[in-house]
């Protein structure tokens, strides 16, 4: 039976000292934080239009890459 690795219980001499921030785990974002982050993601994706995916008349001139584009 393979054993789970020993949980991290190193002594203070060998591990970085705990700070107040270390006591706070990663937490879920608030609704406002989530909405703001999602707006940033949408805007980042929208910037791809700058690569000329559509022509000046709005016609789509670039089709998607194949998933297996090296085959």
């Amino acid at each position, binding site marked *: 039976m393979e054993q789970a690795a020993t949980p991290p219980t190193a002594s203070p001499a060998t591990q*970085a000292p705990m700070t107040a*921030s270390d006591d706070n785990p990663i937490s879920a974002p608030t609704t406002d934080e989530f909405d703001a982050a999602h707006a940033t993601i949408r805007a980042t*994706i929208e*910037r*791809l239009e700058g690569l000329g995916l559509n022509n000046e008349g709005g016609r*789509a001139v670039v089709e*998607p*890459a194949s998933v297996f584009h090296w085959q």
Partner: protein
Amino acid sequence: MARSLTPDTHIPQNLQPTTWNPAKEARRVPDESLHYQSIREIGDRLRRRELSAVELTRATLERTERLNGTLNAFITIMAEKAMAQAEAADAALAAGTDLGPLHGVPISLKDLYQTAGVRTTGGSKILADWVPDTDATTTRLLNEAGAVVTGKNNLHEFAFGATNENPHYGPTRNPWNTAHIPGGSSGGSAAAVVAGLGWMSMGSDTGGSIRLPAALCGAVGIKPTYGLVSRAGVLPLSWSQDHCGPLTRTVEDAAISLNAVAGYDPADPASAKHPAQDYTAGLTGGVTGLRVGMLREYLGANVNPEIVAAVRAAALALEHLGARTEEISVPAVNQSDGAGMAISYSEAASIHEQWLRTNRDDYGADVLDRLTHAEKLTAVQYLKGQRARRVLVDRFIALFNTIDVLVTPSCPILAPTIPESRGNAPRAQLLGFTRLFNVLGLPAVSVPCGVSASGLPIGLQLIGRPFDDAGILRAAYAYEQDAGWHTRRPAVQ
């Protein structure tokens, strides 16, 4: 628990090496420098019978047990299985069967790689008790090469993050300063090889998850050309951007490892039918006449000045070695972030669709946050990413008509502390210089190129044409041997 060899251990006569002394073998304790020798040096010692695979594996396991409490680089340590593999390796070598450079060499696997009979958690709570009954293709290839797998490395949950702060198994810590992240998502792999807990670890890279931890930990990490190394049996994050590759301490070790795992696999629908190649041949060929482009967009004001200085010095070193370097501009990279995001997020949401319905509460907060964003993306946004991908591929294929190797920093920032890494700004920056090359599928390797004033490693990224993995390794090797950063060791207690 490992069985110790004693003078009473019976080894059949036909498997005993002619000069093997069981009493001597059982008592000898390898010295500390052993853990930092190269794969080639260790292999030579094994073949000269200076060292046995059992002895080597026992020493590696003991070091792992001693340091894992500090580094948390492993989720599972496979002591019994590893000792059995080591015994088999010794017996085979003694019988004259030599499986190649990795025969008898301790390695590890990011805990995304299926290992038959050994749990494969994906760094998650959802798969905490999953024990696959089959190996990943890469696991099988490494077993067939005689490698000794000592354990499964800690990672960012489901590989969907860049800090390796795992809420279920604890954070992995950077061996150079344990207050700092090692980078992710293959953070356990990078920490393990840099701390001398094995000679290689297989990682995965969807947006930078091999190259980033390699850079932040002072290791070598290669994301091979898309399709070169099989993804079969490796838990996916983004089908069209997942790449599998090794993390090591040196470029030669990376080339040796790539030899063992590269090749067509019918079990992987994205596997490339590329002819077999020896990635160590020509490694010492040098860089005379090599056309090297430094990407101006990745050397700007948003990059840590120490990192810019180190990368510029590396380019100068390549020039002194005979390469022709020039600064080049590809403005499209400033608009390209959304491509990797649209594609990887959408594909990840699809991969996790069922668990998000049935096990939503079992995800860590940051990964659930990303997956929730991903669920809200539309098909039009996903396709925008794929359309942009076509434009970017064309631009970079054209670029490689004028250069042979592109160099950039591997990361624009130094490794943040673990609390700092929870901020949105660092998290957005960590993969800023690696993600594009997952979109493109081009081979990319990170090698150490300096150390900050605060003692943190800096990585140089070299990118090449499709299937010119040997070319970027050759350039990386020439730089590495000249600069010598790979000889530094962290003082992990």
